[in-house]
C-alpha cells in the first residue's frame, strides 16, 4: 500500500503544480488545494501508516497496551487541513471580488496594479 500511496502523492503533486501553472485563477485555487492534499498525505505516509489502531487509549487503561498509530503526524495534518480551509475560503472570496472589479479570470490581465488597466 505504501507504494500505491507514494504514487498517489506524486500524482497529487503533479496535478497541483500543473493547475497552478494555468492562467485561470480558479484553476490556481484548485491547484493549491490538490497540492495541499498531496502534502498532507505525504506527511501521513512518512509518519508510517498503521492499520486499525487509532491513537485513542482504550477503555479503562491509562496507557496503550498494544501498537498504535503515531499521533504526531495526525496532529500536524489536522492543523494543516484547518489552516488550508482558512486560506481557501479567503482565496475563493478574493477571486470573486477580483472578478467583479476587473471582469476577468485571467492572471495575465491582472499584472498591473492600476484598476483601469
Amino acid at each position: 500500500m505504501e507504494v500505491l500511496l507514494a504514487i498517489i502523492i506524486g500524482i497529487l503533486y503533479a496535478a497541483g503544480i500543473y493547475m497552478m501553472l494555468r492562467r485561470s485563477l480558479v484553476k490556481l485555487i484548485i491547484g493549491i488545494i490538490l497540492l495541499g492534499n498531496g502534502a498532507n498525505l505525504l506527511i501521513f505516509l512518512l509518519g508510517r501508516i498503521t492499520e486499525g489502531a487509532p491513537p485513542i487509549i482504550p477503555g479503562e487503561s491509562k496507557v496503550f497496551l498494544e501498537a498504535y498509530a503515531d499521533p504526531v503526524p495526525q496532529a500536524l495534518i489536522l492543523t494543516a487541513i484547518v489552516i488550508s480551509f482558512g486560506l481557501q475560503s479567503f482565496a475563493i472570496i478574493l477571486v470573486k471580488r477580483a472578478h467583479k472589479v476587473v471582469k476577468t479570470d485571467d492572471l495575465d490581465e491582472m499584472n498591473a496594479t492600476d484598476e483601469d488597466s
Partner: protein
Amino acid sequence: MLTAILLGFLFALFLVFTGKFFRGKLAILSALIPAGLFVYFASFIPQISSGEIISKTYQWVPAFGVDLSFKLDGLSLLFSLMITGIGFLVFAYTASYLRGHKYLDRFYGYLSLFMAAMLGLVLSDNLISLFVFWELTSISSFFLIGFNNTNPASRKSALTALGITGFGGFSLLAGALLLGSITGTYSISEMLSMKEAIAGSEYYILAVVFIFVAAFTKSAQFPFHFWLPGAMKAPTPVSTYLHSATMVKAGIYLLMRFTPVLGDQEFWNTTLIIVGGITMVYSAIHTLFRTDLKGVLAYSTISALGILVFLIGLGSKDAFMAASVFIIVHALYKATLFLVTGIIDHQTGTRDVTKLAGLRKIMMPVAIAGILAAISSAGIPPTIGFLGKELTYEASMHAETLTIVIVIAIVLTKILLLWAGFVAGIKPFTGKLPEPYKDVKAPDFLMWGPAIILAVLGLLFGIFPMIIESALVKPVVSALGADASEYHLALWHGFNTVLLLSAITIVVGILLYFFVKPSANLENRIGKLEFISPKSILEKGTHYFNVFSAFWTNVFQNGYLRNYVTTIVLFLVVLVSYIMFGSSRVVIDHTQLSQVTAYELVVALILIAGVFYTVFTKSRLAAVAAMGVVGLAICLIFVFYSAPDLAMTQFSIDTLTVILFVLVLYRLPKYLTLSDYKMRVRDGVLSAALGTVVCLLALQVLAEPTNSELGDFYAKNAYIMAHGKNVVNVILVDFRGIDTFMEISVLAIAAIGVFGLLKLRLKSTDRSQ
C-alpha cells in the same frame, strides 16, 4: 573628557531648537565652543609633554567589551588641538563667509557635529567606539559636502564621498572585529602589549588590509583619492576644515595609532611606502593641470597625505619625527591657503587662477597670509615648512631599500607642491590687477584674521621650533613607539646633502613656477585621460551594475506567477534529483511494506480518476465536484489507516470547500482554455517530473529508520498528565494548546477578511456597472 566630546553633539542638538537666533549676528558666538575646547585641551600640554597619559573609561556595552574609553596621549593631543584650534578659526570665518545664509544655523550644527565626531575619533581607546565616531565623521561630512543641496554636482560628490568613506568604515569594522578576535579585547592600549601575538597570527595580513582600506579611503590615497577633489564642491570653510586638519587626517591618525600595534612588519611598511609614494607623485603631477584654485589645493592635499602615509611607512624614528612635524606644517599652510582661496572666491566670484592677479592692491592682509603660507608650503626658511621638508628628506635618505628612487620621488613631489603652493598663495596677488576686479571690496577682519593667524603661526613655529618641540612633536613620536628624547628641532643643521636637496627643490620649483603657468589648455589635455581614472572606472562599474540589476530583476520578478512557480519547481526537481540520484541509489524496502487490499485499490483508483478529471475537464463545476471526490477518497484513506479525527476533519472541510466554491463561483465567465498545446505539454512534463521526484523521495524516506520518541511521549502522558484518551486531541488542545490558539486566530482573521470582502462596496466599480 566625555563632556568635552559631547559638547559638540549637544550644541548641534541645541541648534535644532534655537537655530533661528544663530542665523544673524549671534552666529559668531558659536565659535566659543571650539575656542573653549581648545583651551581645555591646551591645558593638558604640560602633563602630556612630561610623558603622562590621561585616560578615562565609561562603560557602554560591557558584555561585548565595548566601552567609551578615552585616552589622551601625544598623538591624540596634537589632533585634538588641530581640530579645536582650526575649528575655532573656521567657525569664526564662516560667520562672515556665509553671512545672511538661510541655513547658517544648520551649517553650524553640521560643523559642530563633525567636530565632536572627530574629537571622539582621535580620543577613543576602544576600537568599536572609534568605529562609531569614524562613521559619524563620514555622515556629518556628507551633510557638509552636500551643503549646497540645490546643486546636483554637490549632491553627487557628497554621495561619492559618503560611498567611499562608508566603504572604508565597513572595512574598519571588519578590521576591528578581526583584531578583537585575535587579541580578545577591543582596547587599543591593551593591544599594544600583544604586538607579537598579532603579528604572528594567521589573520595578521587580513587585519592590516582592512585597516589599510579604511585609512586609504578616508585619507584619499590612490586609488580612492577621487572623492576629495569632488568634495571641493562644498563651501570653502568646509574644505578648509575637512582637508587641512580633520577628516582626511583621520586615516593618517588611524595609521599612526596602529603603528605601535601592527607596524614594524615588512608588509605594513612596504605597502604604505608604495601606496603613499604613488599617491604623492601622482597627485602632485595632477596639480599642474588644474586651473581652479580649489582643484590645485585638493590635489596638493592628496599629495601631502601621500607624503604622510609614505613617512609612516618608512617607519624610522626620523620618519615619525618628520611626519609629526609635517602634520602641523600641512595643517597650518593648507588651512591658510584654503581660507585665502575662500576670500578670493567670496570677493571676486571666481577661483579660476588664470584670471586672477594683482589682488594685493585690494586685500593686503590676505596677500601677506597667502604669501607666508606659500613660502611655508615651499619649505623656504625660516618657516616651519622648511623644518618639515628637511626632516622628510633626512628620513627618506635613510630609507633601507631603493633609497635613490625614494629620494627622487620625494624631491619631485616637493618641487611640484612648491609650484602648487605658489600658484595658490602668490599668483593671485602679484602682477597687474585685471580691469574687471578694480571695484572688488576688501574682506572684513573676520575673514582675513583667521588666515593671517595661521600664516603667522607657521612663521613663528619656524623661527622658534622649541615651542612645539616638547609640547607637541615629541609626545607624538613617543606615542608612535619611538624614543625621541635626543632630538632637537632647529632651522640650521649645517651644510649637508639635505640642505643641497632643499636648495635644488627651491630653485627648480621657482623656475617651474615662472615657466609653467596654469592654463585651461593643460587642463583639457589631462581631461582626455579621464576615462582611465579610478573615478570613471568606478562610475562605469556602478552604472553597469545598475543595468545588470535591472535586467536580473526583470528576468526573475516579471510579474507572472507561473514563471515563479516554474523556476521554483525546476530548481527543486534538479536539486533533489541531483542529491538523490547523484550520491546514492534509490532503495525501496519491500519487507516493511503492507499489502494492498481490494477496497484500498478501488479507493486509490477513484482518487486517481478524480484527479485526472479535475485537471482535464472543461467545466468548472465538474472540476470542483471531482476535487470533492478526491478529498473524500483521501478521507477514506485516513479511515483505513487509524486516523478517525483526520477523516472527520477532512470530510467536513472538503464538503464546505466544495459548497463554497459552487455558491461563489458559479457566475464566473466560461472556464476558458487560455494556454496553447505547447505550453500545456511543457507544464505537464515539469509537473510530472516533480511528481516523480516526490514519489521517489517518499519511498526513499520510508526505507530509512524512523524515530517515534515524540509520539511515544505523547501517548504515554496523554492520560496521565492531560487526562484525555484521544491522543491527537490532547496534543492539539493541551500539549500544543498555544499553537492551536494561534491557529484559531488565523482562522478568525481569515473570517474577518472574508466578511470584509463580502461587505466591501467598491465604489468606482459599482458606478461602472
